[in-house]
């Protein structure tokens, strides 16, 4: 049985993630859980996250989940979503908080001075809505998804990996930023596949079938 654990640390809309995965993988066992043992025994792990990264790190620690998330990033198909991407890096400008340091790099806020669109229009922050993701390289999770497809974003911070080769997808919004990273068994995205209609469902389906 293909079991996926969606790590529940009290931040974000886990029900939507669970329902979307159930929709694309009806045969899978989908667990929304805060128990480290279930995260450890699952075949696949999804770490969503919404809100402020300092709150997310605090709640993850308070529930004793830090180590099981780090372990999951080392062993099995791992999908990070939004803050679940950001927390993989060393630190964030948001509250000056430290992350899990799975990857080198930091999380930056959209720089106010760069938030100007093509015809001089001010770009709003949060970056909220559907934007294009350019695939930086082929990947199993991009299968059947058009290069430049639009996904739903809602965030004010983005990751800046030390190693540019981590980047699997890029998006333009005032700055050209990393919208997806991939390495070995890890894939993590800034956008919300569970809210990105058909394109997002395709990505989640690819994740559930992924054999890194």
């Amino acid at each position, binding site marked *: 049985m293909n079991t996926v654990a969606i790590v529940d640390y009290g931040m974000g*809309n886990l*029900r*939507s993630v669970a*329902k*979307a995965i159930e*929709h694309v993988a009806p045969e899978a066992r989908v667990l929304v859980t805060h128990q480290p043992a279930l995260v450890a025994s699952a075949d696949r792990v999804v770490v969503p996250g*919404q*809100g*402020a990264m300092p709150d997310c790190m605090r709640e993850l620690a308070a529930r004793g989940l830090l180590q099981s998330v780090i372990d999951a990033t080392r062993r099995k198909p791992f999908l990070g979503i939004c803050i679940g991407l950001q927390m993989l890096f060393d630190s964030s400008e948001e509250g000056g908080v430290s992350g899990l340091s799975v990857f080198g790099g930091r999380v930056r806020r959209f720089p106010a001075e760069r938030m100007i*669109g*093509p015809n001089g*229009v*001010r*770009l*709003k*922050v*949060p*970056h*909220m*809505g*559907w*934007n*294009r993701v350019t695939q930086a390289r082929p990947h199993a999770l991009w299968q059947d998804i058009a290069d430049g497809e*639009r996904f*739903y974003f*809602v*965030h004010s911070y983005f990751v800046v990996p030390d190693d540019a080769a981590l980047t699997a997808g890029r998006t*333009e*919004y005032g700055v050209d930023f990393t919208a997806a990273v991939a390495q070995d068994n890890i894939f993590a995205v800034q956008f*919300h596949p*569970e*809210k*990105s*209609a058909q394109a*997002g*469902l395709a990505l989640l389906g690819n994740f559930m079938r992924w054999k890194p």
Partner: protein
Amino acid sequence: MLAKRIIPCLDVNAGRVVKGVNFVGLRDAGDPVEIARRYDAQGADELTFLDITASSDDRDIILHVVEQVAEQVFIPLTVGGGIRAVEDVRRLLNAGADKVSMNTAAVQSPQLVAEASGKVGAQCIVVAIDAKCVSAEGEPARWQVFTHGGRKPTGLDAIEWARRVQALGAGEILLTSMDRDGTRIGFDLPLTRAIADAVDIPVIASGGVGNLAHLADGVTEGHADAVLAASIFHYGEFTVGQAKDFMRARGIEVR
């Protein structure tokens, strides 16, 4: 480039979709789940549910509606109406809403916006502003905030209130012109533009859409980040796809 969003709005009364004309004279337009699925299939970028259920006995029905829709429709859902406490926000988010919209409660208790935003994040908090033009002819335009479905004046200037809710932690503003709502003669473009240019957070224009050009004007003239409409979509007059084709032809980025 970020696409401008098209958001069909579903007014929900005791679990059924209705649409008010100037908030009076409601007409039943059907089942929320079916309508949500149809809009998703048409390419809607997001859906907004406004719960207009009056009876407090029926207030929990919206939670079931949200749960059912969120199980089948995988685009962002905003729910507004009847929110009085952070607990109401939480319950809606847990049911599957992505954002919660507050109107009267925000005016009565601005601290609720700050508290909710602090708890669940600004990205989940929408403040709905119902504004009506109060300047005399010949004067520079001024708009005042109204609550209770447009019945109660608050004395608040709409532009100042928009800036204030941004500072309090709103992540988005849903702006409705009470002068235009239900009229089908187009958005109040000067109002939309004044608010959109006054804040750094996204603004959704609402109230008065009667044709596809109105939607495009909301973006090009009104500087809105998203446009919301109900009746032109509910009665099958136009599909969301047609709205997008029209906007694309006007040079607007859409999904």
